[in-house]
C-alpha cells in the first residue's frame, strides 16, 4: 500500500452539527490504513461567505490553512465539498498569480508561515479511489451491501466548477457509483444525482429556493426506489437530513429518505456497527440499515 498519510482538515461541520461524520471518518480511515494527522490549528474555509466580503482576507486565511499542511509535508485531506472548493480556489489563485502569492506571504510572514504551493488539496472520496484503491477496498469488505439500492448525491462542489475541481467529468461523474459497487451495493440512477441541496442560500431564500431543492432531491431518490442516499459532503447532509422534515412540510408529502455520509457507508461494509458510525444521530433514521446490521 502506498504511503497514505494526510494532513486532515476537518472543517466546521464535522466539529459542529455532524459529529458522526468526524467519528466515522476516523474509524474508517484507520481501518483502511490511512493516517490522518489532524490540523488542529486550521480555521474555517470561509464557505464562500467571507470570500464575498473580503476576498483577500479569505485567501490569506486559507493560505494559512494550506501552509499548515505544508509544514507537515503532507497533502491536505478534506471531508467537505465546500471546504474542498474554497481551498482549491485559494491554491488556484495563489499558484497562478506570483504577485498575489507574494502579498499573501507578506502577511503570513508575520506569524512565521509561508505558502509554497507544495501540498495538494484532496477529498476523502478521491483518496478512497486514488489512495486506498478500489481493489483494496473490495478485498476488505466483510459485509457487502447487496440488499441496498443506494442513491449517490455528489453535491456541487466536488464536481463544479471544473476549473477548480477537475477530478472527474462534471457531466458524468462515476466515483461514488464505483465505491458503492466495490462495497457490493446497487447504485441507483436518479434525476437529482448531480443537483444542489440548497444549503448555501438557506439564510436568504429558505422558502423560495432552499427547501424546494431539498424536497426535490429527496423525492428524486425516493422515486428511484433508493433505500437511502449517500453524500461526501456534510453540508448536503445537514440540508437533506436535518431539514428534510421542513422541506416535506412545504410540499405536503412525507418522503422519509435517510441520508448517509460516505464514510458511514464504507464503514458498514467494513464491518462496523451502525451505532459506532453514528447512524442513530440522523434526523431521518435509517431504520432499514440499522436493523439489517444490528
Amino acid at each position, binding site marked *: 500500500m502506498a504511503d497514505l498519510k494526510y494532513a486532515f482538515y476537518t472543517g*466546521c*461541520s464535522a*466539529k*459542529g*452539527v455532524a*459529529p458522526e461524520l468526524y467519528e466515522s471518518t476516523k474509524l474508517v480511515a484507520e481501518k483502511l490504513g490511512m493516517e490522518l494527522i489532524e490540523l*488542529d*490549528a*486550521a*480555521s*474555517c474555509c470561509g*464557505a464562500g*461567505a*467571507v470570500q464575498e*466580503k*473580503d476576498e*483577500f482576507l479569505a*485567501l*490569506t*486565511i486559507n493560505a494559512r490553512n494550506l501552509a499548515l499542511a505544508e509544514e507537515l509535508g503532507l497533502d491536505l485531506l478534506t471531508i467537505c465539498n465546500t471546504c474542498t472548493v474554497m481551498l482549491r480556489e485559494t491554491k*488556484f*489563485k495563489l499558484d*497562478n*498569480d506570483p504577485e*498575489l502569492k507574494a*502579498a499573501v506571504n507578506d*502577511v*503570513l510572514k*508575520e*506569524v512565521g*508561515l509561508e505558502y509554497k504551493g507544495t501540498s495538494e488539496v484532496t477529498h476523502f472520496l478521491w483518496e478512497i479511489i486514488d*489512495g486506498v484503491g478500489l481493489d483494496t477496498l473490495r478485498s476488505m469488505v466483510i459485509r457487502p451491501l447487496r440488499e441496498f439500492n443506494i442513491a449517490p448525491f455528489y453535491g*456541487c462542489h466536488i464536481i*463544479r*466548477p471544473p476549473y477548480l475541481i*477537475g*477530478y*472527474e467529468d*462534471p*457531466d*458524468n461523474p*462515476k*466515483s461514488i457509483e464505483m465505491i458503492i459497487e466495490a462495497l457490493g451495493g446497487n447504485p441507483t440512477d436518479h434525476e437529482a444525482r448531480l*443537483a*444542489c441541496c440548497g444549503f448555501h*442560500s438557506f*439564510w*436568504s*431564500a429558505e422558502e*423560495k*429556493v*432552499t427547501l*424546494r*431543492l431539498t424536497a*426535490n432531491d429527496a423525492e428524486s431518490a425516493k422515486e428511484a426506489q433508493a433505500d437511502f442516499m449517500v453524500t461526501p459532503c456534510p453540508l448536503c447532509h445537514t440540508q437533506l437530513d*436535518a431539514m428534510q422534515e421542513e422541506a416535506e412540510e412545504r410540499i405536503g408529502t412525507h418522503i422519509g429518505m435517510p441520508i448517509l455520509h460516505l464514510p458511514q457507508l464504507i464503514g458498514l461494509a467494513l464491518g462496523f456497527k451502525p451505532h459506532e458510525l453514528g447512524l*442513530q*444521530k*440522523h*434526523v431521518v433514521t435509517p431504520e432499514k440499515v440499522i436493523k439489517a446490521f444490528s
Partner: protein
Amino acid sequence: METFKLKVFRYDPTKDSQPYYQTYELPVEKGMTVLAALFKAKEEQDPSISFRYNCRAAICGSCAMRINGHATLACKVQVTHLLEKYNTDTITVDPIGNVKPLKDLIYDMDWLIDKLKKVKPWFIPKEAPPKDGKEYRQSPEDHNKIDFASDCILCASCMSDCNALKVNKDFLGPMVHSKAYRFAADTRDGAKRERLEAVLEDVNLEWCVRCWECTTRCPKEVQPYENIIRLRIMAAEEGYKTPGEIHAEIFEQDILNRGLLNEMLLPMRQEGIFGAIKRAPFGIKMMFKGKVNYADFFGGHKVKRLEEIKVIYEKAQEKKKEIHIKLPQIMGVIYEDKRKTAKRANFAETGGNK
C-alpha cells in the same frame, strides 16, 4: 461503431398532446457536431425537425440545447467526443431547461427577454460624450473587470441548468445577474445603483445557491456565478445590508474569535431573537439526536494558534489595499493537478472517466 442514434425531443403543440422522442440512426463522421447531425437528420430523414441556429461557430448563441442532460451549444460539441465521454451509442437532445418549448428544440424566448429588461442591459452613460468627439474611454484595468462578462452571447445555457431557477422562476437567473454586473461594473455607466436595486429586489441576487452550474455550462467563459459574487460585493460596498452580508460578518467574527464557525449560535445571530424562537423546535430535535455541541453555546471549542489569525486579519486589512486580484480567466482557467496524472491509473482501470 459506424452509426449512432440521435434521440430528439419532439413536440408540436398544434397536434401532439405530449412531447415524445424520435430516434434517427446516423453515420458517425469525424468532426461532426451535434448541430451538423441534426441537419443531416433533417435533410435526409425528416424535414419536420425544428431547431434554432445561425452562425454554426459558437458565436450567435442560437443553438443552445440540452445534450445528454446538460446545456451547451450544439455547434460546439462533437458527436465522437460525446459518444466516448458517455460511453454510449446514443446522443439525446432536449430543449434547454427552465423554459417553455414551442416546437421541438425551439423554446419561448420572451420570458428571458422580459427578465433581461429588468436590469436594463444597455449602457446608460454617466456623463455627456467626450468633447473631442471620440468614444467613452476607460483604463485597461477597468476594462478587465467587465471584459469576460461582455462576452456573453445570451445563449441561456446557464439559465437552463441553474438550480435556483429550477425551483423558482422568479429568480432572475445567472445570465441576467451577470448582465447586470457587466453594466454596473462599467466605470462609464451611470446607473449602478439603479441596477443594484433591480437585482436586490426581494434579495433576488442572494437566491443563488452557489451551485456553480452556470459557470460550468457557459460556453464563453463568462463565469456568471463569479459575476454574481462580484455584484454582491458591490452591493455591500454600496451599503446594502442583506442576509448574505450579515452571514459573512458572522463567519468573519467566528474565524477571528474561535477559528471555526459556531453553528449552534448561528440562527440567533443571523435572525435575532425571533429567528431563534422560530427555530427552537428544530434545535430541540437536533439535541435529541445528539448533534448539539453544548459547549458551543458558551463559546466552546477554539482552534490552536488562534493568535496567528488575529495578526493575519490586522495585516491583511493594510495589504489588501495594495493588491488587485486578477480574474480566474486571466490566470488561465485549467487547473493542472499534478497528483492526478500520478495516481490516475487506478481510476481508469476501474472504468471511471479518463
